[in-house]
């Protein structure tokens, strides 16, 4: 009984009887097709990650909706960041399922970071399903400002 608002199947069939209706159906279908490019994340089961260089630290951000702290494991060794995460997606009892787009996952990944990290100072926070890691660069990888002397 719930369908995506612009679902193709809910549109009137193409026909000569209602030229305007058909055009509008076509336009809506085009909108749907193009809309799906922007909706690349709708059906994706891969969590979204980003890594940003903040100068003295790298910031890693990963989306883990519905993942508990205890199901997240973060490890940093030198330039390698390793992540383990999992979640279950349970069907509530006594309900019929109309749509199942959310996926359960078990993920193990390692990333090669561009610089060495001071593993002792790494902080990890999980808030609203988003994991944020602040990865301070190791002393030798810290940016250095070189003073330019006028000759």
């Amino acid at each position: 009984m719930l369908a995506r608002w612009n679902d193709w199947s809910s549109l009137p069939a193409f026909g000569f009887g209602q030229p305007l209706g058909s055009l509008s159906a076509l336009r809506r279908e085009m909108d749907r097709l193009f809309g799906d490019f922007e909706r690349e994340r709708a059906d994706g089961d891969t969590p979204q990650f980003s890594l940003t260089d903040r100068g003295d630290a790298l910031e890693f951000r990963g989306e883990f909706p519905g993942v508990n702290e205890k199901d997240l494991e973060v490890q940093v060794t030198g330039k390698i960041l390793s992540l383990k995460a999992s979640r279950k997606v349970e069907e509530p009892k006594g309900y019929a399922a109309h749509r199942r787009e959310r996926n359960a996952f078990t993920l193990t990944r390692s990333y090669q970071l561009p610089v060495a990290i001071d593993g002792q100072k790494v902080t990890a926070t999980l808030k609203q399903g988003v994991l944020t890691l602040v990865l301070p660069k190791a002393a030798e990888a810290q940016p250095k400002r070189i003073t330019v002397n006028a000759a």
Partner: protein
Amino acid sequence: METQEQHKQAIEKTRSTREVGFPVDIFENENEILLVADLPGVDAKQIGIHVDLPEFRIEAKAEGSEPVSYRRAFRVDERIDPERVNAEYKSGVLEVHLAKSAAFRPRRIEVRAS
């Protein structure tokens, strides 16, 4: 010659907010429709749930260095009571309960013995 179509393509958004969808699970039992959505990184206050039958729409904004705007709309039928829609947001997951109007819920009719 610059056609109108080319001109349209050249228009860029002034904000770099990305508009994306999000995965949902939809369930139904005799009393309600239950929608579960993955909406990571959103402040609960930034979630808008609009019931404008037959349309049902969820919009949300995730702030941050790369702002994201979430939006999806669904068609629901008239059995939903727009006054009885409840939502809860926890750990990046939104749960919306759309209760069916009393008139459409199954009723047990008692047979009286005379």
